[in-house]
């Protein structure tokens, strides 16, 4: 059973649907008591950083998640905004992130010569794996995932970086630090490549 954390940011049904298709039950919940019992977590989300962090805090998730993730070491996968909340913060907002992964998000900024790079970075792009991980097992070719975002991660510790994506610059689009995993793209919208990634998370962690 995978517990999907619902803090009102984005549609979570597609994640549950994809998990179901690969044979895994999930629970979409806004209740801290459900999170308390969780053995595996997904932190999804679409939207603005401060909105996300505020609704997150209003629901009283921070302390329970700190305990689950930092003390009990329950595996957790952050997706898109969920990944962003796991870090120290974003230039998009003023709120502090959860701070589990050191580093911050900055906005894509391209000069005149790079004008073909539009913001948001939207569409299918490649993930280049930079360290060994169970999350990325089983790909015969470089996987392409669906991205929609305007801010990119600048990690403090390069060792956390799991994969990079090239969009004007080469940036960290996935990280893994102990039990904490984050991906900037949407595996739940990335067809077979996304399905394989979620299957790895569901079965190998």
């Amino acid at each position, binding site marked *: 059973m995978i517990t999907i954390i619902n803090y009102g940011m984005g*549609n979570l*049904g597609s994640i549950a649907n994809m998990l179901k298709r690969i044979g895994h039950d999930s629970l979409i919940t806004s209740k801290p008591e459900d999170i308390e019992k969780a053995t595996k977590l997904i932190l999804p989300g679409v939207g603005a950083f401060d909105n996300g962090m505020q609704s997150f805090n209003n629901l009283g998730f921070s302390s329970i998640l700190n305990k689950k993730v930092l003390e009990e070491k329950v595996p957790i996968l952050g997706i898109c905004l969920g990944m962003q909340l796991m870090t120290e913060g974003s230039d998009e907002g003023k709120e502090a992130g959860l701070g589990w992964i050191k580093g911050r998000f900055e906005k894509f900024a391209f000069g005149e010569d790079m004008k073909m790079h539009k913001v*948001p970075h939207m*569409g299918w*792009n490649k993930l280049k794996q930079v360290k060994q991980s169970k999350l990325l097992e089983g790909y015969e070719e470089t996987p392409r995932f669906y991205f929609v975002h305007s801010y990119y991660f600048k990690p403090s510790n390069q060792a956390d970086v799991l994969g990079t994506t*090239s969009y004007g610059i080469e940036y960290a689009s996935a990280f893994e630090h102990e039990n904490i995993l984050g991906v900037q793209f949407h595996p739940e919208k990335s067809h077979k490549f996304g399905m394989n990634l979620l299957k790895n998370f569901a079965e190998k962690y």
Partner: protein
Amino acid sequence: MLAKRIIPCLDIKDGRVVKGVNFENLRDSGNPVELAKLYAEQGADELVFLDITATHERRKTLAALVEEIAREINIPFTVGGGISTVDDVHILLQSGADKVSVNSAAVRNPQLIQDIADKFGSQCLVLAIDAKEADGEWLVYLNGGRLQTELILFSWAKQAEQMGAGEILFTSMNHDGTKNGFANEALNDLSQLINIPIIASGGAGTMQHFVDTFTTGSADAALAASIFHFKEIAIPDLKQYLHQHNIPIRL
């Protein structure tokens, strides 16, 4: 490198797929959910569902259909047609749509663009523009191409970008249904002017037309309907063709 996107568009009426030529003479060409699954399997990068049902039951039936589509497919999809309030958007996103496309209502009330972007984020807002060129001017049309406005395509697209639209879906009424290629000159002009992704629509007839719109038209994505529905072009063949012509594509 970011891949160019191929987007089949399904026009929906009363829960079925239809496609008109020049917006008229609609023909039924299939079950939307089945077609959506097939396209996702074949490598479509996204899907657009445009609801043209006119009854007042439409809101409910559309939400139910969107829920069904979301259950069955695992690529991003956009829903449009008759969206005129933040509430409409909320229902569709809640039902599982990734994005909504707004057209006439945004022209009548441009503030709607900002309201949607503020509430749900620019990433879920596609501004659809139907425009027709006459005497060197690209004028915006409403109501599925039936009502001409004074708005110029380029200034409207620019304004929409500034107000928070996340993408522009530009349909050239001069090209739609002709199968003679996309409006590449106008698309390229638009691309120079705005910095959000542009989806080319109207005129797809051959695989080379897609190459052209991604190169000379500078489009980020290309949308087509009947050529896919009537199997004139198969998506896997199209993607191979684009790949062979050095267009970055997801295979």
